[in-house]
């Protein structure tokens, strides 16, 4: 394989060219209600070539690897069509590396029957938890594969990636009232993380049933405490995406908005992206441009101090690449992405911030979220009214919305209980999703958040 790649690269008529080859075997097991919807193994192989010629990019993907030389030619031709552009790529030292995956228990060594039986057991637990449980979804997935990256500067890296996870969903129903609760784990630690989740099965089932009795929250402005999972989602969705250099690199106004040294949030808030944290969902050693991974502090005590780069965006902004160029698979060119993004621990505690909240909402878990860079909406899985510093009635349909910048400034308590949350989901951007990432943080309290509702 290396010979095929090196020969093809050497023959290319381009200023810069790179090749990636992905090969993976995946196992999926999915129960929906009583039925096993999916069980089995799939395999795939594919490659891509990205070429830079006279300031323009060409990109070609394929899965007949044996014809690589032909696709190298096609990519150069596509780049020539773009031609006359201003694209460049930042300098990076050539690297040669072979990175092995280090899961505690390799899912490759577990037979399909064991994966099936585990899901069947979890599914029975959820379905049998209450007569109000209408249906369930239990989904297991693993992927064992390797990515080869090579470029015309002499970099040649092989990385093995072994990802494994499970997601548990309970759906409870009472008349037309349908409620759901969800739990998911997924990262690089191996098969062990999907074992012993019986307690979580019971918890999601109970939560879905309890939500049936919850009332929709009344719309209005509240002091809101986010749980670690929701804090992580906020860090990722609302702030992390703004820190991706391709958000602002070609827009002067946005660049001005994202000037280093500018205050963005209260001094309690620091946000970090770190692919080198071991074995989390978003961890890796080299990104998909062959740049070594490293941590990047995005927000330090409320002050903007870093952003995420690929070699392409780094060249545009005359900054250093940060190792955040990632591609979902062989059919995509790498773009700037987060890895493990989290709000750093603060000095407070959940118990104290709760006690100091006379009236508010405790928002827990995450159903979905969206941002348009300035505004965000996040829906919590469940919520509790806070009255007189204590958790009160359960409420549902808690959708938080607001202006990102105002909201970051309105954070007035940050606890120390950081959790990193991975899972089978992931991040979507530019049509590339779900990409494995984790997001995390501690409990935080935000003043004056708009909560939608009736």
């Amino acid at each position, binding site marked *: 394989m290396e010979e095929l790649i090196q020969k093809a690269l050497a023959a290319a008529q381009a200023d810069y060219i790179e090749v990636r080859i992905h090969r993976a075997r995946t196992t999926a097991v999915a129960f*929906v209600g009583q*039925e*096993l*919807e*999916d*069980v*089995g*193994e*799939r*395999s*795939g*192989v*594919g490659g891509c070539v990205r070429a830079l010629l006279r300031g*323009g*990019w*060409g*990109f*070609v*993907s*394929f*899965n*007949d690897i044996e014809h690589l030389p032909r696709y190298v030619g*096609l990519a150069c031709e*596509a780049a020539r*069509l*773009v031609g006359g552009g*201003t694209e460049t790529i930042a300098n990076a030292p050539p690297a040669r590396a072979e990175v092995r995956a280090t899961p505690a228990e390799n899912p490759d060594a577990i037979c*399909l*029957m064991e994966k*099936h039986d585990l899901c069947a057991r979890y599914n029975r637990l959820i379905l049998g938890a209450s007569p109000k449980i*209408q*249906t369930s979804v239990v989904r297991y997935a693993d992927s064992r594969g390797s990515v080869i990256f090579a470029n015309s500067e002499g970099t040649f890296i092989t990385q093995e990636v072994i990802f494994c996870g499970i997601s548990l969903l309970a*759906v409870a*129903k009472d008349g*037309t009232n*349908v409620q*759901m609760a969800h739990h998911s784990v997924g990262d690089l630690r191996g098969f062990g993380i999907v074992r012993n989740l019986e307690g979580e099965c019971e918890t999601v089932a109970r939560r879905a049933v309890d939500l049936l009795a919850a009332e929709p929250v009344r*719309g*209005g*402005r509240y002091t809101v405490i986010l749980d670690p999972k929701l804090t992580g989602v906020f860090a990722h969705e609302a702030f992390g995406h703004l820190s991706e250099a391709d958000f602002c690199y*070609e*827009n002067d*106004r946005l660049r001005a908005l994202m000037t280093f040294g500018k205050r963005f949030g209260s001094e309690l808030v620091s946000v970090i992206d770190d692919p080198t944290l071991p074995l989390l969902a978003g961890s890796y050693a080299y990104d998909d441009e062959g740049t070594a991974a490293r941590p990047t502090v995005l927000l330090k005590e409320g002050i903007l101090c870093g952003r995420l780069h690929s070699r392409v965006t780094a060249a545009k902004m005359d900054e250093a690449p940060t190792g955040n160029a990632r591609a979902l698979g062989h059919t995509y060119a790498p773009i700037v992405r987060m890895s493990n993004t989290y709000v750093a621990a603060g000095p407070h505690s959940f118990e104290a911030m709760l006690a100091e909240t006379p009236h508010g909402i405790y928002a827990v878990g995450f159903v*979905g*979220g*969206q*941002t*348009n*860079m300035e*505004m965000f909406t996040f*829906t919590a899985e469940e919520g509790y009214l806070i009255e007189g510093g204590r958790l009160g009635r359960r409420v549902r*349909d808690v*959708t938080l*919305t*607001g*202006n990102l910048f105002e909201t970051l400034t309105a954070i007035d308590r940050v606890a120390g209980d950081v959790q990193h949350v991975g899972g089978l989901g992931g991040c979507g951007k530019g049509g590339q999703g779900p990409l494995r990432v984790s997001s995390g943080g501690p409990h935080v309290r935000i003043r004056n958040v*708009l909560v*939608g*509702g*009736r």
Partner: protein
Amino acid sequence: MNADLAERVLEEARRRADAAEVIYEESEDHSVEFENNVLKGVSADTARGVGLRVIHRGRIGFSSTTDPEALGRLVDNALASAAFGQEARFEFPATCRMPQVAVYDPDVAEFTAKQGIAMVRAAIDYLRTQMPDLHCGGGVSWSLTRRRLLNSRGLDVELQTSSFEMGIEALRVDEDGFLEVGEGRGWRRPTDDLMPQTRRVAEKIRLAGRTAPPVAGQLPVIFAPKAVGVLLASLAMNTNGKYVQKGVSILKDRRGEKIVDERITLWDDSLVDYAPGSLPVDGEGVACRRLPVIEKGVLCNFCFDLQTAGLLGCESTGSATRSFSTMPAPSHANLRMEPGESSLARMIPEMKRGIVVDQVLGAGQSNVLAGEFSLNLDLGYLIENGEIVGRLKNTMISGNVFDVLNDLVAIGQPAEWHGSEEVPALWLRGVSVSAGG
């Protein structure tokens, strides 16, 4: 790997399994993409793969691969999967009488990157001439797919489809914040004219130039066609046979009952020439059709694939959607809501005071099955005295799809295509609106 390989896989599979179905696909996609006013890249993607579904000892198994080196394990993997798989409640179809519908246009194969580049560049030039501050992006992508479906009962169907998608978007950044407006179209035939969409983007950005004062309370709301899909999502999910069979559809026992205003008629129509969701034959070899989902407010039909229908003791509606790497699952082809008597242009003056919703944030975040929605107005306008007075910001609207579709004031015309949905504007009598600071 090529289409003949499908026969070889079927040959081996029928020797070892009770029944088998092979799907082979190859596709070729091309795209040109602009970002921040300039051409970012030209790309091409070719792909091929094979999927094998078996029924063995009464159970379903499946596997797929794109790796010629892994072909030897394909039948093994499918049989291993069948050891646990669902009990099959169907037989593979032996024949298919395909209806007439055009899904392939050879002009797509002739379309060139140069044409794509020219049309997006013209659109961006138009927008930037009028509003030099805009940051525009956009692109064109076109693809050709060939599918062959064979099974051990003798079915052998070949299908060639084309698709063509284009879009233009503009981002405006000023002291007040961001506004991003995008318009696009997907169809199975090419065009070299992106100007209708481009003019619409310019018009919307102009309308949003002024910010309206915040409003709250119970207000009438017009959903422009582009936003109606958010409401349709609840109807689509609840009439999907999969959700019915799982028992989670809140409409599962309501066939024949009136569920929404009697002026609403909704079709699932696979037979519109060149529409994005159209096909003559589904992913299992069952003929596609035109099916009423809701007729004059009354719930008529759910969509099914073979297995889902088998489990409920009814017939497939030819709605099996899949690729070579996935098992079939039912989904609607093109959802088409019949237009009404009014129009967006007439609704606005008649409404006097209310909101027009065009783009929303937060779709799908609420409990879609229950019909609930809670949406931030990404692009919405306030109407005062029958005129648009400006863009509403930091505003949420919430409600329940089934409530609001039972309390309609008017349906607009014409219906517009957005993706694989053809929908008119809807004027809802009262929706809960909350405003931020």
